[in-house]
């Protein structure tokens, strides 16, 4: 998958504390359709590692996890 894939939707959970980034991502993903791509912006290190792990476990595809700056990450999730 190329890295310039266009996300269907963006979820910005920067500033949020444990476990809201994960919970909000799960909720958002549930509301999206198969094949759509969600971009999650997060600045909480534990969630930046945990969201890709739990999304893959749930069967979704992680297209990319990228550190975009100091303490900031971008995660691209393709909905199953």
């Amino acid at each position: 998958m190329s890295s310039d894939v266009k996300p269907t939707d963006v979820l910005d959970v920067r500033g949020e504390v444990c476990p809201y980034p994960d919970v909000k991502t799960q909720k958002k993903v549930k509301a999206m359709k198969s094949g759509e791509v969600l971009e999650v912006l997060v600045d909480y290190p534990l969630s930046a590692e945990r969201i890709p792990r739990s999304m893959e476990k749930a069967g979704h595809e992680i297209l990319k996890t990228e550190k975009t700056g100091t303490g900031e990450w971008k995660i691209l999730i393709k909905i199953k």
Partner: protein
Amino acid sequence: MIDTSLMISGLVVGVIFGFVLQRGRFCMNSAFRDIILLKEYSLIKAVSLAIVVQMIGFHLMATVGWIQLNPKPFYWGAMIVGGFIFGIGMVLAAGCASGTTYRVGEGMMGSFVALIGLMIGGLTTSAGALAWLNSDLKSGVFSLITSDDLGVEPGPLIKDGNTSLTLANVLGLDPWIFVVIIAIVILAILMWKRGGEESKVEGTAYERIFKAGWDWWVTGIAVGIVGMIAFLAFKNYGLGISGGWFGFLNALITGDPEKLNWFTFLVIGVVLGASVAAVIAGEFKLRAPNAKRLLQQFVGGLIMGIGAVIGTACNIGHILSGIPQLALSSILGGVFIILGTWTAAYIIFMRG
């Protein structure tokens, strides 16, 4: 004032502990909550492994005479109520005592606010407006139960004069029997359930240690070793967090340096060590959630402080340092911390 060598040892152990906590993202709120909420088990595995490492380590060090175990007194009512309250508080605060402390070092202002709440809640309960609650839960029907009350021996390896209950002395068995059985059971479960949570991080040793978050087993072993170092350095107990912060605020408002304790220097070290780790990893950032969440975290911290004083210890003092000593107080407190966590997580995140 505690003597200088203890100050320095507290600070040094704290810096190492803070570094490990930040690299391992070690937080018991996440560990317990995510068993039911996110079905994510890497942190509970790290916690379990750290308990095993310390359980073996403490008993080895006590057997050769380097330390004497010092289990906490068995105030059963206070353990149940304090533990449960603490568990609820840490869900609201978005971090346990150690998680909150290391995240202050990462620049998370919500954790900073929770920490202020923790200190206020603690002093309010130990010497302030809620002191009655604390003493009521430790007297009358809730009075201390000692090994003398049960007519059993205080047990080997335990500090002279300490009559607190442990699994070993209550059942009149050698503590090593429990150490070996519990270690085998936990390690067997960890081996059986391995896979799935290990990271796929590749790169040089430097990158794996200083840039990426650690695998749970690295974190578990590291936390366990730090706990052993802490017990060797302080002699009287293993790691603890909340008592250090209570001493910090107490010294600030009374101007009495006698209120500072070994743990105060430890927790200051934790913040410093976590900061260093976060800066090296490129993860240090001053950040804050919205106003509502800040208020929630403050209230959570307050509740944690109240629970930690009533329960005589936070998650670290009980689960990380007390359970490895087989202390019944810490086992009971730990169980109710977990039940409090699950209750709050269910109500806040899982209903409907």
